[in-house]
């Protein structure tokens, strides 16, 4: 210490905000990636510029939105079907998620069982709901049922995963206390496990209802029923004014649902 040089302000400064080379290299790598990726992908500046000009005509054709009564009836029935898909898929999805999540919880089940249940959840999570609805359209035909089944799968992937995590985080003391009294398995579930996680479970459910409603407007693109089918048909027929009407109606529906979900969560807090 005695040999240390007199403190000089320049070295303090460098110590306050030192240059971090590995971080700079990471930024450089990111930049190089962007240059490389945009060069190999089919993205060019002139296309972008031409598209901007295109966008003007596109928007002009969207306005004013379609309001003819017979078209509005089409939009109305499509939205109604989307709502039905959302309600049924959430209801049955959550119903199925409950046992699957309990099976997946590592603090309640032997490893073999929980790994199998986790596998089911992982598969449900990995596929986008539109892809799942393609498969269900083949299996059960066009219409709302394919959309409902696809969103049930999506619901299991989300709700069961988070619910299993919630169960793993709970306190084991009530469970052990009940076990010590010799309570049967289902009593342990209903009296020690569910009361601890019910509030979070309702939170996940309302969140999933909200996202199922968003997604139910899309499964129709591949034949899964709901407003998506109407939207895609209108788009393919270049009925851009009807497309705009559908978009506005969908956005309003989603915003109402979001507000309702927030309310619902407050009631159960």
């Amino acid at each position, binding site marked *: 210490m005695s040999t240390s040089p007199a403190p000089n302000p320049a070295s303090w400064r460098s110590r306050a*905000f030192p240059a971090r080379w590995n971080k700079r290299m990471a930024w450089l790598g*990111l930049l190089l*990636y*962007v240059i490389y*990726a*945009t060069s*190999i*992908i*089919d*993205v060019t500046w002139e*296309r*972008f510029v031409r*598209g*901007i000009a*295109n966008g003007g005509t*596109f928007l002009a054709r969207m306005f004013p939105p379609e309001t003819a009564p017979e078209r509005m009836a089409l939009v109305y029935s499509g939205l*109604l*079907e989307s*709502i*039905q*898909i959302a*309600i*049924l898929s959430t*209801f049955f999805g959550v119903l199925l998620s409950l046992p699957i999540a309990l099976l997946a919880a590592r603090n309640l089940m032997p490893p073999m069982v929980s790994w199998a249940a986790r596998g089911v959840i*992982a*598969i449900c999570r*990995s*596929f*986008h709901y*539109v*892809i799942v609805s*393609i*498969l269900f359209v*083949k*299996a*059960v*035909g*066009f*219409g*709302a*049922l394919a959309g*409902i089944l696809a969103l049930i799968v999506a619901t299991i992937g989300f709700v069961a995963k988070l619910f299993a995590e919630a169960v793993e985080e709970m306190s084991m003391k009530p469970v052990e206390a009940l076990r010590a009294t010799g309570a049967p398995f289902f009593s342990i579930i209903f009296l020690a496990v569910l009361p601890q996680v019910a509030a979070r479970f309702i939170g996940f459910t309302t969140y999933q209802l909200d996202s199922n409603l968003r*997604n139910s*407007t*899309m499964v129709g*693109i*591949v034949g899964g*029923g709901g407003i998506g089918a109407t*939207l*895609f048909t209108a*788009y393919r027929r270049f009925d851009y004014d009807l*497309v705009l009407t559908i*978009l506005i109606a*969908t*956005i309003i529906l*989603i*915003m109402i649902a979001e507000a309702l979900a927030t309310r*619902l969560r407050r*009631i*159960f807090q």
Partner: protein
Amino acid sequence: MNTAQQARWVRFTPTERIARSMVYIVVVVAVIWSLKTVEVIPEFLYDAPEQTADLLSRMWPFDWGYYPTVVHAAMIETIHIATLGTLLSLVAALPLAFMAARNFTPFPVLNWVAQFIFVTSRSVNSLVWALLFVAIFGPGALAGILAIAFRSIGFVGRLFGEALEEAQKGPIEALNAIGAPGSMVLAKGYWPQAEPAFWSIALLRWDINIRESAVLGLVGAGGIGLALNASLDNLYWDEVGLILAVILLVVMATEIISSKIRARII
């Protein structure tokens, strides 16, 4: 209650109980209404097991020869669409998030404008964004990148804005006290506090975007979805099976990679 001999303890107030019962009733009514009115064609249901067996038998064995010719390049394109779209959304969401953070931007009008942009971005599904951009820019990866970016702005912006609002005042007040310029307060006061949240949000969204970009091609926005759409239209289920398997592998790999990166940088 005061006059009662024994205090009766109730967990919920009467309003709470009524509200809860109402919710239960509404749920039951909604489910019954949906079940009764939803349009399900029973004829389609009778042969569902056969159709499923047929689907599986047509899928397996996969058409492996299709991988090197089409699927590989298409999957790489999907990954690029997701990554570039995520990066673009980060660039756009960063200033908007600062604009939305009430502690950084003390003007309610600007906060409101940023929030409005976020809500719009999140309310429109990425497939719908893709439809719009395909109509404007034509089919291809550009429409996909923009669709991913526009959908992600709201997600990233809202979460990062919330992270900024949680930033501690101390370092910022210290920088202000020594007369640091605004850009310095931003770079050395706010950014270091919110940076881990920023990268964590970016990774989370990248993970989601890989999944989403796989289907954008169904409406013409490039990537593996285009190949999937072509195979579906031709009823080449062995190709469809291969594509689905590749998507599954990539999605799982992405999840592992993003959790590894998260563990390293946060």
